[in-house]
Every structure is written in structure tokens, then in C-alpha cells.
């Protein structure tokens, strides 16, 4: 792990003057920070993967993923209750009304 490169990046984001100096003349800022040629190349590439590699020497276990893998357990199934089937009550036939008969309580 390159502590010098880490320190360089933290300084850049924490100090606007250093960032301005870097943007104006990267080589001078690299020189002052004492970065290795590989580290300079990683920064010049603007490639995040290369910079990650330079920071960790490729030997850091990834921690880009912080979520559990999906569970493969099945959801608990409900135990079936022993259901005693009730007989449906016979549907009542509607009372037949006489044609033209007056409804009970109806007003005309």
C-alpha cells in the first residue's frame, strides 16, 4: 500500500491551493510529493482502476460491495389448518311477488 500516494490524494482534496497547483503544473507537484514514476503514470491516466491498483498494490480485498447476497432460504410455509367443510346453507329463493302487486309499505 502506498501511504505517500494516499497522502498526496488527501492533500489534493483537502487543500484547494494544492489542487490549483496540481492543475497548473502536475509534474512540479508530483516532484514535490516524491511520487514514483508508476504512481505518476496512474494519476496521469485518469483511470480509477489504475489508481486503485497503485494505492493498494492490488492486494486489498475488495470492499465495494456491502450488501448480503440474497438468501436462498424458502419463506416459511403456513401449516394448513384442518378445515371442516361446512355445508353451505341452501340459498333462499326470493319470495315471488305478484305481478303488479303493491309493495309492502310502498307509497304511491
Amino acid at each position: 500500500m502506498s501511504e505517500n500516494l494516499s497522502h498526496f490524494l488527501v492533500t489534493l482534496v483537502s487543500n484547494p491551493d494544492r489542487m490549483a497547483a496540481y492543475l497548473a503544473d502536475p509534474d512540479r507537484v508530483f516532484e514535490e510529493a516524491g511520487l514514483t514514476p508508476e504512481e505518476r503514470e496512474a494519476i496521469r491516466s485518469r483511470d480509477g482502476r489504475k489508481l486503485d491498483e497503485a494505492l493498494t498494490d492490488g492486494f486489498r480485498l475488495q470492499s465495494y460491495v456491502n450488501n448480503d447476497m440474497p438468501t436462498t432460504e424458502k419463506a416459511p410455509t403456513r401449516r394448513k389448518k384442518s378445515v371442516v367443510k361446512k355445508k353451505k346453507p341452501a340459498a333462499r329463493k326470493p319470495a315471488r311477488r305478484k305481478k303488479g302487486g303493491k309493495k309492502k309499505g310502498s307509497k304511491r
Partner: protein
Amino acid sequence: MQRGRRRAAAPPPESGARGSLVVVGIGLMLGRHTTTETLDAIQRAEHVFHLLTNPAAEAWIRQLNPRTTALGDCFHEGKSRSESYAEMAERIVAAVRAGEQVCAAFYGHPGVLVSPAYQALVGARRAGCPARMLPGISAEDCLFADLTIDPRGLGWQSFEASDFLLRQRRFDPTVALILWQVGVLGEPSVRRRMQARADRLQVLVETLTPHYPRRHQAIVYEASEFPITDPVIDRVLLRRLAEQPLYPKTTLYIPPRPTTAQNRRVAGWFAP
């Protein structure tokens, strides 16, 4: 009298002093995505636990507060990630129970696909301690900005890639599709220099391609972690996705298939 005051200032573990927990996300880009609310929480904490993506981010957080503990050592090759996350949450909750004012910092948004953050929150609350979460900038937020997508106009669906396959999630190909963690598709653990396995990616390809035109493209996306690097935005044919190296931090964006279908009655509401 003096002794009594000392005791109150530095309570021994489990002394009854009430600990607390704030779970925060520092965003993706080093030192640039962190809200002032989160900065304040990190600086005020008695103990900061962190799980960050690179050593520079760890150095940055130590600069804000030297009382830090890294959680990355909970990962081991071959060890179940679930086990690692439970261990991280246990460490955080133990400090809260001991009466410390704890801040747990993760990259991105701590409420988006961060299991140990949720587990720690639940654990602290069960212990009777106040615990809350502060929002952060997620990879999806960066994706919308970098790809210049307006989710309001298109709508979008967002799934965890392994869960998407395992649960055979239903999706609408006429709406944008985002698949998180595609670089660790079907991976129960971690390993060095990790990349998605081509055979597992092929299963994803076979699930998706019947729903899209033959030349449909997907975008392999990685947010930028440093202000001096660029985001990864690689366009690939969806049917060739398995040939592409995908890393743990890769998010897959699949643009919607064109559609002209519409509800005539609703369309009538907008007719001049």
C-alpha cells in the same frame, strides 16, 4: 468529590452511560461528496468505525477524526460475506452498548445495499440506544449525473444483480434497468482482484436478451472515486456482456427498449 466527577467523565464499559449511533455515507468521490451534516457527525464522534473503498479514503477520515477503527479486516477470502457483515455490526453495536457516541461511516449511501449499516442500526435500537442514519450520495446518483439520465422522464427499475436472477424478478424492458453489484454476481465471498465470472454473466445475458433488440447496448458504469479520475462509461452489446471484465464496483445500466404503446384514454387527456 473529585473521584465522582472523574467517574462521570469516563464511564467504564456497560456502566449505564447511554451510547448512540449515527450511520453515515461519505459518497463516492474522496472528500467531495460528504455532506456537512455527515462531516459534523464524523468529527463529533467518540469512535468512528469505517468501511471504505481505498486507503486514501481511510487516511482522509483519520484526518477528520483520529479515533477510528477500520472494519475491512472482517473480510477474508472464502469467508461468507454475510458473516463478515454480521461481525462488523457486532463490533459497532458493542461500542454503542459500552456507552460510546459512535459514528459508522460507509462509502456511498449507507441505506442503499449496505447490510452492516442496517444491522448495526437495528442492534443499537434493540439495546435501547438512539440510532439514526444520514443520507449520502450513492452510485446511482452519480450514474444519473454522469450518463445525464432524467429518471423522472423515463422511470427506472433498480435491482441487486444476484437477487434479480435468483428471484426471477419481473421487469419492464421499456423502462431503464439498473443492476447493482453485477461484478460480484453469485459470489458468496470475496477474493483478491475480483471480477465477475463469465459463466454467471452468461446466465444474466440469457435472461435479459430475449426482451431486447439484438443490437441493444448496455452501459458498464463505475463512478469516479477521485476528482482527478474519470468515471467508467463503457457501452457494450448486451449479448456480448459476458466477454467484458466487470469489477465489484461496476453497476450495469440497460437503457429502455423503445415503445409506442399507450393508454388511449389517458392519452386523450393530453390531446389539444
